[in-house]
């Protein structure tokens, strides 16, 4: 059993990141790449920005109007990927999404983000739980000159 496998603990982590989101607030700095994740089917509207230094993700920040699930999951994501290489970040995002979509994944890679493992029970929340992660993926793609973000 995973050490976070306690609904009370999971709840507390989500609420903590919702009430006190980390890396919150957008900086107006040209060194950052920015993207808006505006879900067409729900009301989450999140801006995400990242500062890359070569292959490294030096900083990730976000802001916007969003529900508890998208705010908390994006907050946890920023903490996980900051200071990591793009490849490491991609690996983390991939494992997180594998968890969300009920595939095999490595819990050690996603750490606190494990608290969203029940998302599949609320299919309508999958987009909330992935919106920030998709945003970062898009920024990494764009930084590498790919257009398929």
């Amino acid at each position, binding site marked *: 059993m995973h050490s976070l496998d306690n*609904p009370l603990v*999971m*709840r507390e982590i*989500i*609420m903590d990141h919702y009430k006190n989101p980390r890396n919150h607030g957008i900086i107006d700095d040209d060194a950052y790449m920015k993207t808006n994740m505006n879900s067409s089917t*729900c*009301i*989450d509207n999140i801006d995400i920005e990242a500062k890359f230094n070569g292959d490294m993700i030096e900083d990730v920040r976000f802001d916007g*109007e*969003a*529900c*508890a*699930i998208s705010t908390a999951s994006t907050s946890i994501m920023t903490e996980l990927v900051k200071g990591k290489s793009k490849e490491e970040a991609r690996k983390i995002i991939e494992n997180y999404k594998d968890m969300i979509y009920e595939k095999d994944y490595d819990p050690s890679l996603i750490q606190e983000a494990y608290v969203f493992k*029940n*998302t599949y*029970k*609320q299919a*309508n*929340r999958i987009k*909330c739980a992935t919106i920030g992660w998709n945003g970062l993926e898009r920024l990494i793609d764009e930084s590498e000159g790919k257009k398929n973000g």
Partner: protein
Amino acid sequence: MYDVYKVREDFPMLKNNVKMHNAPLVYLDSNATTLKPQCVIDAVVDYLSNYSANAERGDYDLSHDVDMHFEGARETLRQFINAKEKDELIFTSGSTDGLNMVAYGYGLTHLKAGDEILLSYAEHASNTLPWFDVAKQTGAIIKYIPIDETGHITLDAVKATVTEHTKIISLAIMTNVLGFEVPIGEIAHYAHTKGIVVVADGAQSVPHMVTDVQKDDIDFLAFSGHKMLGPTGIGVLYGKRALLEEMHPVRSGGGSNARYNKEGEVTLKEIPYRFEAGTPNIEGAVGLGAAAKYLMNLGMENVVAHEEAMRKYAIERLEELDNVDVYNKEATGAIAMNIKDVFSQDAASLFNTYGIAVRAGEHCAKILDNYLGVNSTVRASFYVYTTKEDIDAFIEVCKKGDDFLDAFFR
């Protein structure tokens, strides 16, 4: 006496105890779309099973049957909105389609630079975006009728906004999100003294009110079938004959022309067929006809009274709670509310966990934010089948609001 429990027997989704999240379905999202009664399902299946042929073109018995049912549905809908003649009703794919037909088929051909189109801040996107585009193409100007501090659109506000350049007023009869009834009859009678054409978005009003296009002197009225117990993908655009004669068909093709030659001379068919190019949604039309008939059998006055009673009960119950904000207690449409300190989407997710369908969000009226002061609300809407028990279930979940993450762990 209106017997809601008997009415519920007509709806397979309710009769068969459909469940959501392992709880009996409590459906409070009828403003998004309604459940369907058996008679509508039967009408659709009857067409598909027993007389499936094309409309308006066949030379054999079956095709004649199709025409009888298809035109019969048009006649039923004429009665439903009390139009003068059935040919003033065009079958569309829904309200959005109808409003686009007016904007591009009438607005685009009748507006010129400097003309004014009046809208309100409480319009659905389908009654703003087509007009934005038409204004851009013609040089016409969009102006907004202000909403008063109680949330209403009044005749005085309309009078204050109209100028000599006003050519079109386009309004939802039931304002979006706030759910207030607009005095469309008074507005139309006033507008006509100024030569202004009045377009009405009836998507949220026609299913929930007694509609009389002649009494209210409405020029164009668009509404959707699926919000009044009918199938999706079908709706009606009503227009006064004289205006329809001046309206340009935005789609042309088979079924819209009587004859044409290679030089491009086209003789259009009569109204309404010139606006119904292509094979129509026949099963949708007969299904919608059955829905209108069902509502007329219930009696729209009884439907209105039942919804009023349910809304009143819900407001009373909500007032017992101190952890909710209700934004439109005095309205007639959907209740717009929030559980305090809970983002609307988190709340909707909590309701979902208990089998309750409500809608969270901006409700496609994004320009309303400034007025309401909140970006999003939970919307609970009622219809012919809503019971006090549905509302009680809703209230019980409102009480659990503080623990909205519960939804995530059940």
